[in-house]
Protein backbone atom coordinates (compact mmCIF):
# COMPACT_ATOMS: atom_id res chain seq x y z
CA UNK A 1 0.00 0.00 0.00
CA UNK A 2 1.30 3.43 -0.79
CA UNK A 3 1.96 5.94 1.93
CA UNK A 4 0.00 9.07 1.22
CA UNK A 5 1.24 12.46 2.31
CA UNK A 6 -1.90 14.49 2.74
CA UNK A 7 -0.03 17.72 2.15
CA UNK A 8 0.87 16.55 -1.34
CA UNK A 9 -2.28 14.85 -2.34
CA UNK A 10 -5.98 15.10 -2.14
CA UNK A 11 -8.69 12.58 -2.60
CA UNK A 12 -10.02 12.54 -6.09
CA UNK A 13 -13.38 11.50 -7.32
CA UNK A 14 -13.10 8.06 -8.80
CA UNK A 15 -16.84 8.14 -9.50
CA UNK A 16 -15.89 9.89 -12.72
CA UNK A 17 -14.31 6.73 -14.00
CA UNK A 18 -16.94 4.51 -12.49
CA UNK A 19 -19.73 6.36 -14.23
CA UNK A 20 -18.07 6.94 -17.55
CA UNK A 21 -16.49 3.54 -18.02
CA UNK A 22 -18.70 1.23 -15.98
CA UNK A 23 -18.41 -2.36 -17.09
CA UNK A 24 -20.43 -4.08 -14.43
CA UNK A 25 -17.38 -5.99 -13.26
CA UNK A 26 -17.17 -6.33 -9.51
CA UNK A 27 -13.95 -5.41 -7.75
CA UNK A 28 -12.90 -3.31 -4.79
CA UNK A 29 -12.12 0.26 -5.74
CA UNK A 30 -9.62 1.86 -3.44
CA UNK A 31 -9.56 5.47 -2.46
CA UNK A 32 -7.09 7.12 -4.79
CA UNK A 33 -5.26 10.40 -4.54
CA UNK A 34 -4.27 12.78 -7.27
CA UNK A 35 -0.90 14.48 -7.38
CA UNK A 36 -0.95 18.24 -7.17
CA UNK A 37 1.72 18.48 -9.84
CA UNK A 38 2.53 16.53 -12.96
CA UNK A 39 5.28 13.99 -12.18
CA UNK A 40 8.72 14.60 -13.70
CA UNK A 41 8.56 11.49 -15.87
CA UNK A 42 5.19 12.07 -17.50
CA UNK A 43 6.16 14.39 -20.36
CA UNK A 44 9.11 12.23 -21.41
CA UNK A 45 6.96 9.08 -21.34
CA UNK A 46 4.25 10.70 -23.44
CA UNK A 47 6.87 11.82 -25.96
CA UNK A 48 8.17 8.27 -26.07
CA UNK A 49 4.69 6.99 -26.93
CA UNK A 50 4.54 9.54 -29.75
CA UNK A 51 7.80 8.24 -31.21
CA UNK A 52 6.29 4.77 -31.59
CA UNK A 53 4.40 6.20 -34.56
CA UNK A 54 7.67 6.50 -36.48
CA UNK A 55 8.31 2.76 -36.49
CA UNK A 56 8.07 0.93 -39.79
CA UNK A 57 6.48 -2.51 -40.05
CA UNK A 58 8.82 -5.34 -38.98
CA UNK A 59 10.67 -3.03 -36.57
CA UNK A 60 11.31 -6.05 -34.32
CA UNK A 61 12.55 -8.25 -37.23
CA UNK A 62 9.85 -10.80 -36.39
CA UNK A 63 7.06 -9.20 -38.42
CA UNK A 64 5.66 -6.66 -35.95
CA UNK A 65 2.98 -4.40 -37.38
CA UNK A 66 3.16 -0.61 -37.49
CA UNK A 67 1.88 0.97 -34.31
CA UNK A 68 -1.68 2.15 -34.85
CA UNK A 69 -2.23 5.93 -34.54
CA UNK A 70 -5.43 5.51 -32.51
CA UNK A 71 -3.61 3.26 -30.05
CA UNK A 72 -1.01 6.01 -29.64
CA UNK A 73 -3.69 8.64 -29.02
CA UNK A 74 -5.56 6.55 -26.46
CA UNK A 75 -2.30 5.55 -24.78
CA UNK A 76 -1.24 9.16 -24.30
CA UNK A 77 -4.64 9.97 -22.86
CA UNK A 78 -4.58 6.97 -20.51
CA UNK A 79 -1.07 7.76 -19.31
CA UNK A 80 -1.92 11.41 -18.66
CA UNK A 81 -4.83 10.24 -16.50
CA UNK A 82 -2.76 7.57 -14.75
CA UNK A 83 0.21 9.87 -14.25
CA UNK A 84 -1.62 12.19 -11.90
CA UNK A 85 -2.54 9.37 -9.53
CA UNK A 86 -0.35 9.03 -6.46
CA UNK A 87 1.31 5.61 -6.46
CA UNK A 88 1.35 5.16 -10.23
CA UNK A 89 4.96 5.05 -11.29
CA UNK A 90 6.68 5.63 -14.59
CA UNK A 91 5.89 2.73 -16.97
CA UNK A 92 8.04 1.13 -19.62
CA UNK A 93 6.80 2.11 -23.06
CA UNK A 94 6.65 -0.57 -25.67
CA UNK A 95 4.63 -1.80 -28.60
CA UNK A 96 3.09 -5.19 -29.16
CA UNK A 97 3.72 -7.22 -32.32
CA UNK A 98 0.12 -6.43 -33.27
CA UNK A 99 0.81 -2.70 -33.34
CA UNK A 100 -0.64 -1.60 -30.02
CA UNK A 101 1.07 0.61 -27.45
CA UNK A 102 1.88 -1.33 -24.29
CA UNK A 103 2.62 0.20 -20.89
CA UNK A 104 4.42 -1.95 -18.33
CA UNK A 105 4.98 -1.82 -14.59
CA UNK A 106 6.78 -4.13 -12.19
CA UNK A 107 7.75 -4.00 -8.54
CA UNK A 108 9.50 -7.31 -8.02
CA UNK A 109 6.35 -8.91 -6.64
CA UNK A 110 3.92 -8.19 -9.43
CA UNK A 111 3.94 -7.12 -13.05
CA UNK A 112 1.30 -5.36 -15.09
CA UNK A 113 1.14 -5.03 -18.86
CA UNK A 114 -1.48 -2.70 -20.27
CA UNK A 115 -2.08 -2.84 -24.01
CA UNK A 116 -4.01 0.09 -25.44
CA UNK A 117 -6.31 -1.05 -28.20
CA UNK A 118 -7.26 1.25 -31.10
CA UNK A 119 -10.90 1.28 -29.96
CA UNK A 120 -9.89 2.73 -26.59
CA UNK A 121 -10.23 -0.46 -24.59
CA UNK A 122 -7.31 -1.71 -22.51
CA UNK A 123 -6.13 -5.32 -22.39
CA UNK A 124 -4.28 -5.92 -19.16
CA UNK A 125 -2.30 -8.75 -17.69
CA UNK A 126 -1.60 -8.57 -13.96
CA UNK A 127 0.72 -11.24 -12.55
CA UNK A 128 1.45 -11.70 -8.87
CA UNK A 129 4.67 -13.63 -8.32
CA UNK A 130 3.81 -14.71 -4.79
CA UNK A 131 0.19 -15.62 -5.32
CA UNK A 132 -0.89 -16.70 -8.77
CA UNK A 133 -4.51 -16.81 -7.64
CA UNK A 134 -4.40 -13.02 -7.92
CA UNK A 135 -3.36 -13.14 -11.57
CA UNK A 136 -5.79 -11.37 -13.88
CA UNK A 137 -5.92 -11.19 -17.66
CA UNK A 138 -8.79 -9.16 -19.00
CA UNK A 139 -9.95 -6.32 -21.23
CA UNK A 140 -11.67 -3.24 -19.88
CA UNK A 141 -12.71 0.29 -20.75
CA UNK A 142 -12.59 1.21 -17.08
CA UNK A 143 -9.45 3.11 -16.17
CA UNK A 144 -10.52 2.89 -12.54
CA UNK A 145 -9.95 -0.83 -12.63
CA UNK A 146 -6.41 -0.30 -13.88
CA UNK A 147 -5.78 2.32 -11.22
CA UNK A 148 -7.02 -0.06 -8.56
CA UNK A 149 -4.43 -2.62 -9.58
CA UNK A 150 -1.58 -0.14 -9.92
CA UNK A 151 -2.14 1.51 -6.56
CA UNK A 152 -2.75 -1.55 -4.43
CA UNK A 153 0.48 -3.46 -4.90
Amino acid at each position, binding site marked *: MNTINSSEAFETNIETWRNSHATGEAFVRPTVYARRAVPDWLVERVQKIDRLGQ*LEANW*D*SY*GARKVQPLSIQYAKSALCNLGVIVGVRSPTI*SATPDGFVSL*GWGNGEATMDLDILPDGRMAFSYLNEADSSK*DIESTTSDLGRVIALLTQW
Partner: protein
Amino acid sequence: MLGTDQILDDEFLLRRLHPPEIAPESVVPRSDGGFRATSVRMRLREGEEGLSVTRAVLTSPRQLLNLLLLQNLSPAGWRVCRFTVEEVRSLGLMVRPDPLPEDAGHCLIVGTSEVAYTKKMSSKLAEFTRVLSPQEII
Protein backbone atom coordinates in the same frame (compact mmCIF):
# COMPACT_ATOMS: atom_id res chain seq x y z
CA MET B 1 24.66 -34.43 -37.35
CA LEU B 2 22.64 -33.08 -34.50
CA GLY B 3 19.02 -34.07 -34.97
CA THR B 4 16.39 -31.37 -35.15
CA ASP B 5 13.68 -33.48 -33.60
CA GLN B 6 15.69 -34.20 -30.44
CA ILE B 7 15.92 -30.94 -28.54
CA LEU B 8 17.60 -31.34 -25.20
CA ASP B 9 16.45 -29.68 -21.98
CA ASP B 10 19.78 -27.96 -21.37
CA GLU B 11 19.99 -26.35 -24.80
CA PHE B 12 19.87 -22.58 -25.04
CA LEU B 13 17.33 -20.78 -27.17
CA LEU B 14 17.99 -17.30 -28.59
CA ARG B 15 15.78 -14.41 -29.65
CA ARG B 16 16.72 -11.02 -31.08
CA LEU B 17 15.81 -7.78 -29.32
CA HIS B 18 15.72 -4.47 -31.17
CA PRO B 19 18.22 -1.71 -30.37
CA PRO B 20 17.54 0.81 -27.61
CA GLU B 21 17.58 3.60 -30.21
CA ILE B 22 14.26 2.29 -31.48
CA ALA B 23 11.55 3.76 -29.28
CA PRO B 24 9.92 0.68 -27.68
CA GLU B 25 11.73 -0.53 -24.61
CA SER B 26 12.76 -4.15 -25.01
CA VAL B 27 14.71 -4.91 -21.85
CA VAL B 28 14.30 -4.37 -18.10
CA PRO B 29 16.72 -5.11 -15.25
CA ARG B 30 16.78 -8.61 -13.80
CA SER B 31 16.42 -8.93 -10.05
CA ASP B 32 19.77 -10.78 -9.90
CA GLY B 33 21.64 -8.35 -12.14
CA GLY B 34 21.87 -7.85 -15.86
CA PHE B 35 18.85 -7.46 -18.08
CA ARG B 36 15.99 -9.55 -19.42
CA ALA B 37 13.50 -9.17 -22.24
CA THR B 38 10.20 -7.43 -21.54
CA SER B 39 7.15 -9.65 -21.68
CA VAL B 40 5.88 -7.80 -24.74
CA ARG B 41 8.93 -8.95 -26.69
CA MET B 42 7.91 -12.57 -26.06
CA ARG B 43 4.35 -12.07 -27.32
CA LEU B 44 2.79 -13.63 -30.37
CA ARG B 45 1.17 -11.64 -33.14
CA GLU B 46 -2.48 -12.39 -33.75
CA GLY B 47 -2.57 -15.52 -35.89
CA GLU B 48 1.10 -16.30 -35.32
CA GLU B 49 1.68 -19.98 -34.80
CA GLY B 50 4.48 -19.78 -32.27
CA LEU B 51 7.29 -17.62 -30.93
CA SER B 52 10.31 -17.58 -33.24
CA VAL B 53 13.53 -18.60 -31.52
CA THR B 54 16.77 -20.23 -32.53
CA ARG B 55 18.74 -23.10 -31.05
CA ALA B 56 22.12 -21.78 -29.97
CA VAL B 57 23.68 -25.14 -30.70
CA LEU B 58 22.91 -24.66 -34.42
CA THR B 59 22.85 -20.88 -34.82
CA SER B 60 25.19 -18.67 -32.80
CA PRO B 61 24.14 -15.29 -31.39
CA ARG B 62 26.34 -13.56 -34.00
CA GLN B 63 24.78 -15.60 -36.81
CA LEU B 64 21.32 -14.75 -35.51
CA LEU B 65 22.12 -11.04 -35.67
CA ASN B 66 23.71 -11.36 -39.10
CA LEU B 67 20.41 -12.78 -40.38
CA LEU B 68 19.09 -9.24 -40.02
CA LEU B 69 21.04 -8.36 -43.15
CA LEU B 70 18.66 -10.58 -45.13
CA GLN B 71 15.87 -8.24 -44.02
CA ASN B 72 17.89 -5.16 -44.99
CA LEU B 73 18.36 -4.34 -41.30
CA SER B 74 21.71 -3.47 -39.76
CA PRO B 75 22.72 -5.71 -36.82
CA ALA B 76 24.30 -2.72 -35.06
CA GLY B 77 22.83 -2.19 -31.62
CA TRP B 78 20.61 -5.26 -31.68
CA ARG B 79 20.75 -7.57 -28.68
CA VAL B 80 20.12 -11.26 -28.07
CA CYS B 81 18.41 -12.85 -25.10
CA ARG B 82 18.88 -16.44 -24.03
CA PHE B 83 16.89 -19.01 -22.05
CA THR B 84 16.79 -22.80 -21.84
CA VAL B 85 14.52 -25.40 -23.38
CA GLU B 86 13.90 -26.74 -19.88
CA GLU B 87 12.50 -23.35 -18.81
CA VAL B 88 10.10 -23.34 -21.75
CA ARG B 89 8.96 -26.87 -20.99
CA SER B 90 8.51 -26.04 -17.29
CA LEU B 91 5.63 -23.79 -18.39
CA GLY B 92 4.00 -26.64 -20.29
CA LEU B 93 4.94 -25.15 -23.67
CA MET B 94 6.65 -27.02 -26.50
CA VAL B 95 9.71 -26.24 -28.60
CA ARG B 96 8.99 -27.32 -32.16
CA PRO B 97 11.78 -27.45 -34.75
CA ASP B 98 11.06 -25.23 -37.74
CA PRO B 99 14.33 -25.04 -39.67
CA LEU B 100 14.58 -22.36 -42.33
CA PRO B 101 16.97 -22.28 -45.27
CA GLU B 102 18.82 -19.37 -43.68
CA ASP B 103 18.48 -20.51 -40.05
CA ALA B 104 18.91 -24.21 -39.37
CA GLY B 105 18.24 -23.71 -35.67
CA HIS B 106 14.92 -21.94 -36.10
CA CYS B 107 12.17 -23.25 -33.78
CA LEU B 108 8.74 -22.19 -32.65
CA ILE B 109 7.61 -22.11 -29.04
CA VAL B 110 4.00 -23.25 -29.14
CA GLY B 111 1.20 -24.09 -26.78
CA THR B 112 -0.30 -27.54 -26.42
CA SER B 113 -3.81 -28.90 -26.14
CA GLU B 114 -3.51 -28.36 -22.38
CA VAL B 115 -1.53 -25.12 -22.19
CA ALA B 116 -2.12 -22.11 -24.44
CA TYR B 117 0.55 -19.54 -25.26
CA THR B 118 -1.11 -16.65 -23.42
CA LYS B 119 0.16 -13.23 -22.34
CA LYS B 120 0.77 -14.77 -18.95
CA MET B 121 3.05 -17.32 -20.58
CA SER B 122 4.95 -14.59 -22.41
CA SER B 123 5.48 -12.81 -19.08
CA LYS B 124 6.74 -15.97 -17.41
CA LEU B 125 8.99 -16.75 -20.35
CA ALA B 126 10.41 -13.22 -20.28
CA GLU B 127 11.35 -13.71 -16.62
CA PHE B 128 13.63 -16.58 -17.67
CA THR B 129 15.50 -14.60 -20.29
CA ARG B 130 18.92 -13.02 -19.92
CA VAL B 131 20.28 -10.49 -22.36
CA LEU B 132 23.72 -11.51 -23.58
CA SER B 133 26.60 -9.10 -23.08
CA PRO B 134 28.47 -7.85 -26.18
CA GLN B 135 31.30 -10.24 -25.23
CA GLU B 136 28.88 -13.17 -25.45
CA ILE B 137 27.77 -12.29 -28.98
CA ILE B 138 30.12 -14.60 -30.84
